[in-house]
């Protein structure tokens, strides 16, 4: 068990490094001289040369990558071209905001999805099942930024119940978990939750349905076990694969919130990315992608480990 854990963790290291390499290459594949992607276009020549030396841009690519990684490991992601601020500073608050949004959206999606999926599986073939399946399909097919726009028109503008934009009455700097602040989270989180809702519904429905069909449930029933007992068994057996799906979903939400954040001006990583793209602010783009991708790698690892702990059979596979 321990050996497996160590192996699994060690395997994540080269992946993380390779992810770093991909992010590093983003600046290289951008059209034009990479120096133009790191210093402001109107910087004087002496500044340009200084940066070129500091970043080792006159050296071969592998060495540049080494230099870059060593800076990244120390938490230095460079400076934003647009604002001149260190990228790391902006990222810290942005990642926090995105995490808040993604966690709440995931929670809504997971709870809804689990309920819908279970109900659909138990009442297989009924109208309820069909409605749940339809809802799940709609959840994954709908362009959710569009849904966000519709929700704003309904709840912010027409009914005036919830705010249309932003992260709290005082901005995101002083986020608190009270209604004054959480109000701002409701619409973006709901919008973002439709995807995990759809996917978790499908997964839970499939898993539970299969389990209900299996012999052991019949046996349990035969043994006269009551509903509660059966449910417990089903939960125990369904948990590993459902958890895996949920873990991945959380990661996807972190990386996929860019559109929702744009629609709601939610000051997270997606919002940061969006403005970085239009300012051609590659240090910010690069830093944000790197942090999100590493987060995803770590999350994947965590999911694997939890899954293994819950279901020892996987280790043997």
């Amino acid at each position, binding site marked *: 068990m321990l050996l497996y854990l160590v192996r699994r963790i060690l395997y994540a290291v080269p992946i993380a490094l390779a992810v770093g390499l991909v992010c590093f290459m983003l600046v290289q594949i951008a059209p034009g001289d990479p120096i133009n992607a790191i210093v402001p*276009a*109107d910087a004087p020549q002496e500044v340009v040369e200084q940066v070129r030396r500091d970043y080792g841009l006159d050296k071969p690519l592998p060495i540049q990558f080494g230099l870059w990684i060593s800076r990244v490991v120390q938490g230095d992601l460079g400076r934003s071209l*647009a*604002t001149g601020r260190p990228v790391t500073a902006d990222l*810290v608050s942005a990642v926090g905001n995105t995490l*808040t949004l993604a966690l709440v959206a995931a929670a809504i999606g997971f709870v809804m999805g689990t309920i819908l999926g279970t109900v659909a599986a138990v009442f297989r073939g009924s109208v309820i099942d069909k409605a749940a399946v339809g809802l799940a399909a709609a959840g994954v097919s709908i362009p959710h930024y569009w849904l966000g726009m519709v929700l704003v028109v309904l709840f912010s503008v027409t009914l005036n119940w919830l705010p249309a934009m932003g992260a709290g009455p005082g901005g995101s*700097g002083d986020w608190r978990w009270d209604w004054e602040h959480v109000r701002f989270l409701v619409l973006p989180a709901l919008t973002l939750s439709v995807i995990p809702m759809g996917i978790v519904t499908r997964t839970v429905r499939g898993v539970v349905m299969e389990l209900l069909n299996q012999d052991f449930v019949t046996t349990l029933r035969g043994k006269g076990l009551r509903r509660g007992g059966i449910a417990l068994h089903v939960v125990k057996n369904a948990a590993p694969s459902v958890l895996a799906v949920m873990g991945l979903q959380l990661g996807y939400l972190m990386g996929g919130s860019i559109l929702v954040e744009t629609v709601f001006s939610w000051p997270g990583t997606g919002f940061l990315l969006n403005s970085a793209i*239009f300012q051609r602010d590659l240090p910010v783009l690069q830093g944000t992608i790197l942090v999100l991708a590493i987060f995803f790698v770590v999350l994947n690892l965590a999911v694997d480990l939890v899954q293994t702990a819950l279901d020892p059979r996987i280790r043997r596979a």
Partner: protein
Amino acid sequence: MTLSRRALLGATGLATLPSGLMIPGAAAQGERVLRYGISMADIPLTAGQPDRGAGAYQFTGYTIYDPLVAWEMDVADRPGKLVPGLATSWEADPADRRRWVLKLREGVKFHDGSAFDADAVIWNFEKVMNAQAPHFDQRQAAQVRPRLPSLAAWKKLDAMTVELTTKAVDSLFPYQLLWFLVSSPAQYEKLGRSWDRFAAEPSGTGPFRLARLVPRERAELVRNTAYWNPARMAKVDRVVLVCAPDAVTRSNALLSGQVDLIETPALDMVGQLKAGGNRVVENVTPHVWNYHLSMLEGSPWRDLRLRQAANLAINRDEIVQLLGGLAKPAAGVVDPASPWFGNPSFKLRYAPDEARKLVQAAGFSPRNPVKAKFIIATGGSGQMLSMPMNEYIQQAWKEVGIEVEFQPVELEVLYTAWRNGAAHESMRGITANNVAYVTSDPLYALVRFFHSGQVAPTGVNWSHYKDAETDRLIDGAMQSFDPAEQDRLMARVHERVVDQALLVFVVHDTNPHVLGRNVRGYTQAQHWFQDLTTLA
């Protein structure tokens, strides 16, 4: 999680300022707060010289800081004029007109309590003009250097007098000083000589102090009760600037009561906004929405016929309609009512057939169109409905045989491209920019674009236009200290500019703002500069 985040924020120096001011929402009882949804994607630079163009001066320029020579911003019914700021007088030495002597205002204090004097002024010129100075700030310098093209030297005469020398005689020089703001040397020293930290805890002499800054989100300005100018004492206690670059989001925020006023509403939502009890205010604004055409070798726009055709192919009335009537068709760089308009013989109008003929004469046609690539803004203050307008004009040109491809970028990127000029390496293949211009004075409307001495990156003669006669007229105006003569010469310059169709003139903005019911008063100046102290 929140806890650790805040701890991290503190560690990176982002959570700003004295703790007493840190708690928003918990504003003191009876404090009057107005929240202003602004069209910028980020709070403009707060260290002294704002970035993000002329429209940013109203937010982090003239609020926190003061210029030496100021603009009269609290009148709405006529254009403003130059008024004393931190300098009480400015005069060109009759013996040598290049030497300007400025008397400084006594008794002014920075927000940190230190005194304003000639040393502070010289220190600030060094900050942006002298790359060798220890406190030189590249970011502020990049913003203001192109705005001070005439300045050659600066010198302290005594504790309250400074002397500025221009490169050549320039009677219009005081207009350049509008853009130069004064930050506190003492605060910079106190914060360990870091412009990053200064930006978070700035200190100027202005009517507001910065109480809180959340980059990309908001800035909170509180009234400076010790401000030196009683006429510009802020009427509200606190103004909160909220970044909302998307016009629809911004308008939604006003409709749902999240902000109290906004600039540049989504025009299709104006009806909705009015129905909600909000007021739309607008005013004549010295502004022209245009395409500045490159005159460099290889640019198709070196051909006068194509420049004229591009101007004649546009139906400006329809564009005004697209803008919900909140605009005015352009007849030149400035409005015909301006003293510098003159009497150009090329009349801007919609004449597609004539345009087609001109294109044909230049050797092109709708089947074999002349092709060009323009750099444009995705939006932002002054750019109006950037994308739809560009798209509309693109279609109109296509019909006469001009095929334009756009490279849309964020406004700040466009500004950089603009300051670099058409010959810069990053502008390869691009033959026009779409920065909407402020045209408030002769320098800003004409001189900086069309004098050969202003070729970018010195000034913002983006297109590298060089014309001896135009230079001669401008030089004449700059050497004349007689306003009537200045006006006459500038009108001649303007006639040349329009007759040569150096820009594609489209419309003038009226800079619409929408005030919620909560706003009792606001004076909108006829300028891109606005005075937030007039908010009530």
